[in-house]
């Protein structure tokens, strides 16, 4: 156990546990754990009040590598367990970690409900579009035609888009980042932490063994500028290595198109300005797929509610206590009709 001396500033390494990391060499999870530790240091998070809850899968080993409180639970159920933790002690900062199988397949139901309840948690979904720990089967985010041990002729089921699903569940904070993007990741995670309510972050993570290169079409040095668009509230959705590509609404249609500034009379003023409080826009941005569209990164949607779930619960508890002060338990047992038998 590491003993903290509060006045000293904690460094990223102070958030790493003494346990040997056991992901495959080159796994995207290494970058994520590094990014999270860096974020923790940047926020000077109190390790005693920070809890990582995970389900089952490669991603779910995450809590073992953090020098905070951690609970490695069962497949798909991390959001439900985290709900109990946060409802019991709202002072804790609770992070939920899972993969695409964990959170969208076996635990899809809990993901839906944790999001719609809007309990104050950060949910990080490591999406590698494959089952890793069980050795390479197609996952609910695998593209149609994915060849795997369970789909030797290619998968025939359509994938789910994590961000679109969460937006559909009335999610109020939706962001996306690539595992290796160490610049954007802390920014996104700090925003996720600051958001009161359920913050959902999809981290596109490369599985080097079973699905290597699944995102390489838009995450490599030579193609990321053209393949990604960074969403920043109030700023035009401009991207591309020459900074001259942009997104705009097709005139007269509820449809986004990619345009080049300076071509066909397009000016910067035509480019869509990102409004992170606009849910229909967030749905359109989340759904953009390569190669015809850049993949949306950063905070795609953020529209906090007045209160989070656990706040509302404790408000009711306080209100109930005010309306009828609890008093002695003996009085509770004697409430209503009673009668006395004399000796």
């Amino acid at each position: 156990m590491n003993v903290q001396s509060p006045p000293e500033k904690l460094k990223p390494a102070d958030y790493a546990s003494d346990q040997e990391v056991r992901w495959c060499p080159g796994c995207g999870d290494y970058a994520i754990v590094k990014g999270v530790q860096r974020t923790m240091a940047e926020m000077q998070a109190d390790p005693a009040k920070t809890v990582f809850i995970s389900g089952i899968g490669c991603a779910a080993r995450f809590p073992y590598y953090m020098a905070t409180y951690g609970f490695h639970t069962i497949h798909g159920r991390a959001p439900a367990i985290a709900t109990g933790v946060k409802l019991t002690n709202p002072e804790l900062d609770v992070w939920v970690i899972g993969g695409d199988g964990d959170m969208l397949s076996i635990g899809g139901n809990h993901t839906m409900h944790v999001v719609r309840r809007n309990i104050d948690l950060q949910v990080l979904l490591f999406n590698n579009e494959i089952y890793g720990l069980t050795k390479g089967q197609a996952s609910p985010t695998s593209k149609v035609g994915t060849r795997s041990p369970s789909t030797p002729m290619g998968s025939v089921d359509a994938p789910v888009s994590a961000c679109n699903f969460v937006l559909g569940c009335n999610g109020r904070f939706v962001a996306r980042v690539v595992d290796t993007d160490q610049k954007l990741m802390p920014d996104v995670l700090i925003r996720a932490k600051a958001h009161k309510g359920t913050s959902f972050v999809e981290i596109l993570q490369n599985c080097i063994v079973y699905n290597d290169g699944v995102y390489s079409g838009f995450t490599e040095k030579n193609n990321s500028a053209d393949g990604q668009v960074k969403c920043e509230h109030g700023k035009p959705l401009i991207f591309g290595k020459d900074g001259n590509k942009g997104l705009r609404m097709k005139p007269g249609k509820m449809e986004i198109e990619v345009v080049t500034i300076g071509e066909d009379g397009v000016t910067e003023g035509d480019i869509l300005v990102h409004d992170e409080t606009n849910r229909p826009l967030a749905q359109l941005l989340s759904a953009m797929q390569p190669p015809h569209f850049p993949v949306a990164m950063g905070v795609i949607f953020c529209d906090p509610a007045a209160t989070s779930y656990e706040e509302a619960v404790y408000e009711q508890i306080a209100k109930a206590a005010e309306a009828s002060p609890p008093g002695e338990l003996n009085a509770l047992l004697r409430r209503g009709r009673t009668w006395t038998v004399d000796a």
Partner: protein
Amino acid sequence: MATKLKPTGDTGRKEIDSVVIRFAGDSGDGMQLTGTQFTQSTALMGNDLATFPDFPAEIRAPAGTTYGVSAFQINFASFDIMTPGDQPDVLVAMNPAALKVHLRDLTLGGTVIVNTGAFSDRNLQKAGYAANPLEDGTLEPYRALLIDISKLTLAAVEGTGVNQKEALRAKNLWTLGLLCWMYDRDRQPTIEWLKTRFAKQPDIADANIAALNAGHAYGETAELPSEISTYIVPKADVAPGTYRAVTGTESAAWGLLVGAKKAGLKLFFGSYPITPASPLLHILSNLRQYGVVTFQAEDEISAVCSALGASYAGAIGITSSSGPGIALKTEAIGLAFIAELPLVIVNSQRGGPSTGLPTKTEQSDLYQAVFGRNADSPLPVVASCTPGDCFDTAIEAVRLAVKYMTPVMFLTDGYLANAAEPWLIPNVDDYAEFPVEFATKVEGFHPYLRDEKTLARSWAVPGTPGLEHRIGGIEKSYDTGNISYEPDNHHKMTKVRAQKVLNIADDIPLQTVSEGKETGKLAVVGWGSTFGAIEQAVRRCRTAGLEVSHIHIRHIWPLPRNLGDLLAGFDKVLVPEMNNGQLVTLLRAQYLVPAEGLNQISGLPFKVSDLEREIRARLED
């Protein structure tokens, strides 16, 4: 049940020592309400009582059909009674279907009160009567009181301003009024209840009160057949103190709250609606002023997982369901077991398997409670025996969970959950405290440090500086609490976890004999809600001079230390259960005793007379 009749001069009322009344009608006729109100009045009169609500799974089954019949039975007496009674002495049948279903249970010579207003050709046909039973001699073996309750109710509520439909719905109150007259019950508690219940609809309150009073007045003024009498059931001779009527669900809810307070922990209750367990969620949801956090989860799995998360964060996490829901929770219970976190799982057992008989009672989840998980994962299992006993059992479940850092199964059933009995209200201060001490000492800490005596691991909750640690479902090293795949370590940890649970046997009372001697020809061994019926049957047999004893087991796992020796002292062991033989298997496996099962799987509680007959048969061999 035999009733002694003797006239009591002044009032013209006959004094009897006990009576069993069954109210039966269509699901929409308000029979449960009528029964509950009659129970309240009876409890306030100082009688001992037991009730048995019996209702269909459908909320509103098609009107007039036999499968839509809802019934409520109450047994009340001037002496200590333990069951809702085998056979009703009085049957109230609000429609032909109710008569069709329940007449066969009425004692010969018993009273049947029939609402003739519901005996239309169409209703007779729906109930499957070819001929009108009111006219073809069907009722000859009984004392029949035929009244057009529908018509009299409509007349009674005239002028209260309610429409025809609402007016007719008051006929259950009219019936209640008549029964209050017959058995000298006070109507005032019901009147007060109606005023509160319909505070915002005073016309409905007025109509119901008018119907109640009219039913009573009818009894007073109508010239009833001479064989219909009015009765007095004197107060029961019971222990002095303050009483209330309580259902097992209410007492369980209060027991869980008291248990949490005794442990000094917040109560977190995660649950998903399921019959017959849902009322526990409802009651606890109304105790928010005590800081109770209730969470209606999206499914059974989330319900147990949220409760486990709550325990991890330092509350006492509690989840509740019935058999099928418990099955869904199983994997998470296994996690609680290996993570060694406290958790209380309340199972209000119902008829099964699968959806089975959702509204009927059964005790067929003993195997599930004791054995029903993957791998070696024994849990403490406790079972309550009466509605009031759910209070004590709930406290015991919380105590074991926090002291031994383990999930605990708390078994109740549909009968206990819904049935009411008078309850001598305990003084909460008489129950010992068992305050939890969380780990705070940093030096030498690891999460699997064990208490030498109990073997319980240390409980450090998130938020404690310096004790940051990781736990989970993967096997942990005995020495460090870190992940370990070492073969010897897994063997050792499996043994330690099992031993920890077995050690509880040193922390629970030795098994006693609840009725009869500690050795003899026959021991009748039971558990759960069959307590009352077995106890009464054994008492009757003993009064008749038979050498039989009753042993009631509350701690199903681990079993009391002396149980094996106790059973060895009897020539025969009979184990009545509302299942196909589960405790009997456990006893045979544990003690190699030739225990014999007596099984009733009808969704209904045992009848005392049936048990008595079976006991006699064993002793006559």
